[in-house]
C-alpha cells in the first residue's frame, strides 16, 4: 500500500529543502560580502542577523502548526517541503482540500492512493508558481522601472516605496477589524493589535529616552510575543 511517509518521499523533499537552504546561504554570503565592501560594520550586520533570527522564531513555530494540519492527510514529507519553500498554509490547505474534493476523497484520513497523492502534489506545486516565475523573469525590468523613477525624482521614488508599504499595512490592519460586528470576541484581534502597539511604544521609550540600545533589535519580536501571550487571557475573558 502507498505510504505518504515513505523514505523515498522524505529523500525527495529533503533534497529540495537542502537546495533552498544552500540558496539562502549563498545570498547571505554575497550580501554580507557586499555590505562589508560598502563599509557597513560587522557589528551592524550581526545585529541584523540576531534580530532577524529572533523575530523569525514565533512565525516559524506557527508554520509547524500548518505542517501538522496537512500531515494528517498527506503525510509529513509533502507539508514539510511545501511549508519550507514557497508555500504558506493559506494556500496549501485549500489546494489540498479542493483537489481531494474533486477526486472524491475524504481529508479526514490519510491518502492511500498514489494517484491522489500525485495529483495533490502537482496542484500544490503548479498552483502557486506565478510569483516566482514573474520575479525570475521580470524582476530586472521591475527594478529598472523603480530605478528610473528614483533617478527622475529621488524624493518621489522614496515616497513611492513608502506608499506601497502603507497600502499593504492598511489592508492587514483593516482585516484585523473584520469581525468587530460579531461582538466582544470579534474585538480580540483588535485588542491584541493594540497591546502589540503599546509594547512597541514602551520599547521605543526605553530605547530613545532610557538609552537601552540593545532593546531596539528585539522590540518587534518582543511586542509580537507579548501580544500573542496576552491573546490567551484576552480570549478567555471575552469567551
Amino acid at each position, binding site marked *: 500500500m502507498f505510504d505518504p511517509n515513505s523514505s523515498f518521499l522524505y529523500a525527495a523533499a529533503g533534497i529540495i529543502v537542502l537546495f533552498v537552504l544552500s540558496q539562502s546561504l549563498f545570498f547571505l554570503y554575497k550580501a554580507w560580502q557586499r555590505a562589508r565592501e560598502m563599509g557597513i560594520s560587522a557589528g551592524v550586520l550581526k545585529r541584523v542577523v540576531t534580530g532577524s533570527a529572533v523575530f523569525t*522564531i514565533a512565525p516559524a513555530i506557527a508554520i509547524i502548526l500548518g505542517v501538522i494540519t496537512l500531515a494528517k492527510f498527506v503525510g509529513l514529507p509533502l507539508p514539510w517541503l511545501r511549508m519550507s519553500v514557497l508555500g504558506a498554509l493559506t494556500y496549501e490547505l485549500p489546494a489540498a482540500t479542493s483537489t481531494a474534493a474533486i477526486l472524491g476523497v475524504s481529508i479526514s484520513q490519510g491518502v492511500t492512493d498514489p494517484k491522489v*497523492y500525485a495529483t495533490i502534489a502537482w496542484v500544490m506545486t503548479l498552483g502557486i508558481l506565478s510569483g*516566482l516565475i514573474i520575479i525570475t523573469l521580470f524582476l530586472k525590468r521591475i527594478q529598472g522601472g523603480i530605478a528610473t523613477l528614483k533617478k527622475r525624482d529621488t524624493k518621489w521614488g522614496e515616497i513611492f516605496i513608502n506608499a506601497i508599504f502603507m*497600502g499593504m499595512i492598511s489592508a492587514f490592519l483593516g482585516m484585523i477589524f*473584520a469581525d468587530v460586528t460579531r461582538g466582544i470576541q470579534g474585538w480580540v484581534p483588535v485588542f491584541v493589535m493594540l497591546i502589540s502597539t503599546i509594547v512597541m511604544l514602551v520599547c521605543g521609550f526605553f530605547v530613545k529616552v532610557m538609552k537601552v540600545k540593545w532593546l531596539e533589535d528585539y522590540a518587534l519580536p518582543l511586542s509580537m510575543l507579548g501580544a500573542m501571550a496576552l491573546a490567551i487571557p484576552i480570549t478567555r475573558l471575552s469567551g
Partner: protein
Amino acid sequence: MNTLNYSERVHGWGRFWGVSAICMFILYPLSVSIYYGAWPGFSDLFKGLLGVAPIFWTVGAIEAFTFAPMLGSGGSYLGFVTGNLTNLKVPCALNAMEVARVKPGTEEGEVISTIAIAVSSIVTTLIIFFGVILLSQLQPLLESELLAPAFANILPALFGALAVVFISRNWKIALAPLLFMLVLFISMPALASSVSVLVPVGALIALGVARLLYKKGLL
C-alpha cells in the same frame, strides 16, 4: 566592484537560482509520478488547478509587483523561493532596515534586506526541520487549547507593532487607505480571506494620496 556590477550580478544569480528552484519544485511531483507510476488525469489536474490557480496566480503576481520595490533584488529572488512573505519575510526585512537605519530602495537597503531574508529563511527551515523530527513531542503542545489563541492572533500581534513604527512616520499617506480598509472590512467581513488581493487596492489609494500631497508640497 561598483554598484552597477553588484546589481547586475544579483540579477544573474537570482535568475540562475530562480530557474533552478522552479525545476526543483516541479521535480517533487514529477519524481512521485515516475517512482509510483501515478500520473494525474488531465481533467483532475485541470479541475484542481482551476480551484486554486486563478486566485493564487493573481495573488502571486500582486505580491511580485508590491514586494519587489521594498525587498530589493536579492531579497526578492530569495523571498519568492522561500515563501511566507507577508507573515514573515517582508516584516523581517523592513524591521532589519529600520534597525540598521537604511532605506528600502537603496543599495544599503538591498544588502540588509537580503541578509535579513536569508537569515529568516535559514532559521525557518531549521525550525520546521526540528519540528518535523520532534513532531510527536511537540504536537500536543502546539495544538493545545491553551496556546490556540496565541497562534490565531499572530498577524494582529505582528502588524500592531509594525504599524506604530511605520504609520507614525507616514501618517499622511496611510490615513486614506487605512480608513478605506476599515470601512471595507467592517462592512464586508468575508473579505478577510482575500486580504492579499486588497493589498494593491490599498497601495493604489496610498500612491494616489501621496502623489497629490507631494504635488501640493505637503510631504
